[in-house]
């Protein structure tokens, strides 16, 4: 579910980075104020734990497939929201740098999608379910409900961020239909795994969960404050993105224009037709149309847009030349370096 750099526009990436940085700054303040210094190595090692636990394959009965842990909810339960959020943020940075999961520009998006929802929206739910004290049943339902909600929100954010960036033609309805059910299934697995681990830890070391839930050494959670922060962030993000969209036809306007401006056209493609039928049923905005597929209107405009998008002959020839030149220069530098090394050895 990691957002990739290639899918976002600089504006969306920047806005989300600003929002996530805000939450991180607040968490750091809270952690610094309330933190027992013992918790710093604990946070670090827990981050490494979640990272390695993500590599464990859990076989899912009756499906023949296997799933793995995301870990955001588990971190919140073990460390509390603030320290959990910071730990998740550092895991995501390492994933972006070392594994190309997500990216540096999309870092803010990923921290928001995988950190903010789990630690600040879903974790209070877990606390609410378990507020009368821990037992296996409450831990199970708390972990399940909170994991499901966190993943649904995260997946929905991926859809919104991609659409606002305007990098794909995937219509809103189809994208949502692709993402949400998959993440419902992932959420169930995540919920169960989180629940069984949390129950195990609660049985073996009850103090870990209880201290965290009581807000001892890691800081209490003021839900009201967090909701205000998220609300403000949402308004800011919404405001700046819609402002951007009105400036740039690639963003919101692009989808709005399609919604209002075009009608649905006959297509020969069966998949295309099936998809459009599904899309009709689930589209939030009714009559969300496809772009023009008319043969008639493509020829004159087609050639024109050819020029505009740089697929003219000189663009193609030049593109190939660029590639060849770049690779040639690369080899040349390597060749001379090697030669120099050989001569130095002599």
């Amino acid at each position, binding site marked *: 579910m990691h957002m990739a750099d290639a899918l976002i526009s600089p504006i969306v990436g920047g806005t989300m980075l600003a929002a996530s940085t805000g939450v991180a700054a607040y968490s750091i303040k809270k952690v610094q104020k309330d933190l027992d210094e013992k918790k710093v190595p604990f946070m670090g*090692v827990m981050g490494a734990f979640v990272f390695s636990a993500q590599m*464990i394959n859990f076989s899912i009965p009756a499906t023949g497939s296997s799933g793995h842990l995301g870990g955001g909810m588990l971190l919140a339960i073990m460390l509390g929201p603030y320290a959990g959020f910071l730990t998740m*943020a550092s895991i995501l940075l390492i994933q972006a740098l070392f594994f*190309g999961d997500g990216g540096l520009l999309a870092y803010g998006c990923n921290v928001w999608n995988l950190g903010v929802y789990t630690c600040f929206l879903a974790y209070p739910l877990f606390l609410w379910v378990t507020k009368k004290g821990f037992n296996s049943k409450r831990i199970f339902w708390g972990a399940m409900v909170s994991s499901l909600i966190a993943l649904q929100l995260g997946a929905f954010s991926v859809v919104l961020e991609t659409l606002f960036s305007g990098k794909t033609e995937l219509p809103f309805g189809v994208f949502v239909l692709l993402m949400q059910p998959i993440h419902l299934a992932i959420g169930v697995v995540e919920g169960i795994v989180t629940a069984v*681990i949390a129950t195990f830890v609660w049985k073996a070391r009850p103090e870990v969960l209880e201290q965290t839930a009581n807000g001892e050494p890691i800081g209490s959670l003021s839900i009201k404050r967090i909701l205000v922060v998220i609300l403000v962030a949402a308004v800011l993000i919404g405001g700046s993105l819609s402002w951007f969209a009105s400036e740039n036809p690639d963003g919101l306007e692009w989808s709005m224009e399609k919604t209002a401006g075009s009608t649905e056209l006959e297509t020969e493609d069966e998949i295309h037709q099936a998809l459009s039928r599904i899309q009709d049923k689930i589209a939030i905005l009714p009559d969300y149309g496809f772009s023009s597929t008319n043969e008639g209107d493509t020829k004159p405009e*087609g*050639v024109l847009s050819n020029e505009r998008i740089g697929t003219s*002959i000189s663009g193609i020839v*030049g593109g190939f030349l660029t590639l060849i030149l770049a690779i040639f220069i690369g080899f040349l530098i390597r060749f001379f370096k090697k030669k120099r090394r050989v001569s130095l050895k002599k």
Partner: protein
Amino acid sequence: MSKINNSLYNIRLLDDLAQKESVVHKLHPLIKLLTTLVYLIVVVSFEKYDISALLPLIFYPVLLFSISELPVIPILKRVLFAMPFIIGIGIWNPLFDTQIIIVAGIHIARGWLAFFSLVLKCIFTVTASILLIASTGMGPLSHALRMLKVPKIFILQLTLTYRYLSVLMEEVSKMMRAHSLRAPQQKGIHPAIWGCFCGQLILRTFDRAKRVYDAMSLRGFHGEYPAGNLVKPKVSDFVYFISWSVFFILIRIYNLSDLMGDLFIEVIK
């Protein structure tokens, strides 16, 4: 099983590569981070149908590869791992953006251009990120983050997570090997033992955290983490940053591929 060993190998490989002593490795980490960021912003700022204008940006990874003497194949393999999600989302473009255009006499759906442009952007951005870490390493990179005024507690947490990553991954790898020897032909961990398998690991993690904390306390840790003085970038570092940035911005403004193509066609005529 192979996944965890792959990841372990990956981290060690990038760690080893970061120890090399090329011109790029010697540059200031902050400068490398900023250059990478400018590159990423320029790459993703291109329109979704741009391919020819985007292509000249390949000079950056190619030059970096050859000057830093980093191995091409292992790093590109890492890049491939990041591709499925992009391909999964991008492949819908040709389905929904079916306006026909003519490219070199071939009629294709415009969505294919958007798809290839997306794939290209993904290759460029992921390669740039991995090249950054392979030519810098985690230690110097946290140095750069400190210069960017990222709070110490986050950097400490980041470096500790990184430090213990390989330790815990080895632990998991051992546990999974033991499990697979006792439960052959199973595709993963059976649901009946999900809790105790990970729970055991988490208990070991707690104990390790306690030992880490004790060891740190013995060496004088009390909440502050001495990280040494910050080294300022040199003039040559700034020259590196500015020249790449100017190059990226020029490419953003002028379509170099088009210019080269025109020139080539003129010469042939």
